[in-house]
């Protein structure tokens, strides 16, 4: 594969999947198509299994098809149990959620998130979806990861308009970069091989450590095959409308 062929959509899905660790309890929620795909991709592409739970109540489901809605009940097909909303939140607050994926509109250099409003909360320019899982899950999960389909100084900011969730993401994936938390701040782990450290720096609103950063490893054949199988007709990719630039 040529680096230029690696689309933003595939970059995010695969790099989110790479955060999943063997044997760990990993959760994907509402409004989270890319994490849903990442979890399903990891099940297909990696030898080591993990415990996949999702907001539809599914536990290691075998969905008959991949739904557009990441909370679709199809995601509980062939599940041997329904692990409902109260249950997975409690699992998280008692400290046994290894990895959760959470959405974020703005992310700051400490990995905190704004999901609430652009502008003043009380007089918002844009009212965003809101707190969701974050304010409770981000500080209580062992690790939380997020993604942004736009890498810009509007989304990766020096200062959040509102701090919906505190606690700091373990990992953040954009179309051109992967950040991980190091010493309480987001550090660049790798950049899209078709981008560059300089581009990432220019398009990021917060300062970050890049000393250990390098180009992201290209997708393996298995990662590519798994994603292709999940998005056979390319609808997820086209719906997501993710551009590198």
């Amino acid at each position, binding site marked *: 594969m040529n680096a230029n062929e690696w689309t933003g959509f595939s970059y995010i899905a695969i790099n989110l999947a790479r955060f999943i660790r063997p044997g760990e309890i990993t959760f994907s929620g509402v409004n989270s198509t890319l994490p849903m795909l990442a979890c399903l991709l990891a099940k297909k592409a990696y030898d080591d299994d993990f415990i996949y739970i999702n907001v539809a109540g599914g536990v290691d489901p075998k969905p008959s098809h991949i*739904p557009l809605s990441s909370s679709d009940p199809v995601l509980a097909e062939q599940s041997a149990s329904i692990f409902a909303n109260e249950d997975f939140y409690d699992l998280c607050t008692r400290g046994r959620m290894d990895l959760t994926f959470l959405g974020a509109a703005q992310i700051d250099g400490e990995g905190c998130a704004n999901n609430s409003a652009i502008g003043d909360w009380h007089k918002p320019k844009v009212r965003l979806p809101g707190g969701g899982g974050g304010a409770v899950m981000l500080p209580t999960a062992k690790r939380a990861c997020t993604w942004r389909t736009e890498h810009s100084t509007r989304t990766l900011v020096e200062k959040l308009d509102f701090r919906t969730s505190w606690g700091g993401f373990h990992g953040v994936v954009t179309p051109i970069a992967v950040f991980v938390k190091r010493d309480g701040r987001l550090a660049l782990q790798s950049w899209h091989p078709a981008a560059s450290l300089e581009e990432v720096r220019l398009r990021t609103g917060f300062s970050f450590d890049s000393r250990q950063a390098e180009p992201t490893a290209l997708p393996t054949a298995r990662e590519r095959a798994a994603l292709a199988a999940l998005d056979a007709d390319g609808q997820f990719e086209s719906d997501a409308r993710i551009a590198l630039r």
Partner: protein
Amino acid sequence: MPSGFSGTGRQLALSELVAKVPNGSSMALGGSFLHRGPFAFVRELIRQKKKDLEIIKQSPGYDIDILCRAGCVRKVRAGIVAMEGNFGLAPYYRKAIESGTAQLEEHACATLTAGLRAAAFGIPFQPCGGVHGSDIASLNDWKCLPDPYGKGDPVWVIPAIQPDYAVIHASEVDELGNVRVSGTYHWDRIMSRAAKSVLVVAERTVDSGVFAATPEATVVPYFMVEAFSIVPSGAWPGSCWPAYEIDYPAVEAYLEAGEDALAKHLAAAPEVKEKA
């Protein structure tokens, strides 16, 4: 209001069921986003021109959007609001909040659940894990209490949230109003325990004997249910597992601008077509 509901005559037409709800009521709505929401009930609220409603739901979408669009909503207590399923933000909800015509009490989903738990458990407040560092806490003037036993960290406590009604779309009820759902019950269970009254819209009735064969699967026992209606496909344009999935073109048509689009959408609903 009695502690429990019993006796016959509790199966009503949808219009009668909705007529029970006074203007100004607070209402927890079951389901999540486009999945198994009490959407026929919500549309009937609009037809009956209910006003000043307080809507309580961890993850509303279509329901809160259409209610805001029709001007029925005074207050929203919610965790995350979106259409989902690739439809993005809920535009009419967004407009209502941005313009101030509806008031938002923003929650994390789990803090809303904590408030419902407090009501369900009969306690004034419920501690909730997490929350620290979130600006939502000060927004809502939530309190953080130290552990009086000196062992744990201070914990945020959420005041009780007791809806007047929990409104649930069920897969099936029996003739008494016992409720079962297929798949996840989302937050329906805790809503039914927190609310003063439970109103149910179900896809169908089945014989009580079916329920008695696996009573463990009943989510809400009949005596919590004040009244119920049968509306096949009542969760349209959302899904009701495993009977039907989201009707994406219908959601798209709903999202078109203008009063016409809304009227057309309301007229196309299964609870109307059923009657016609």
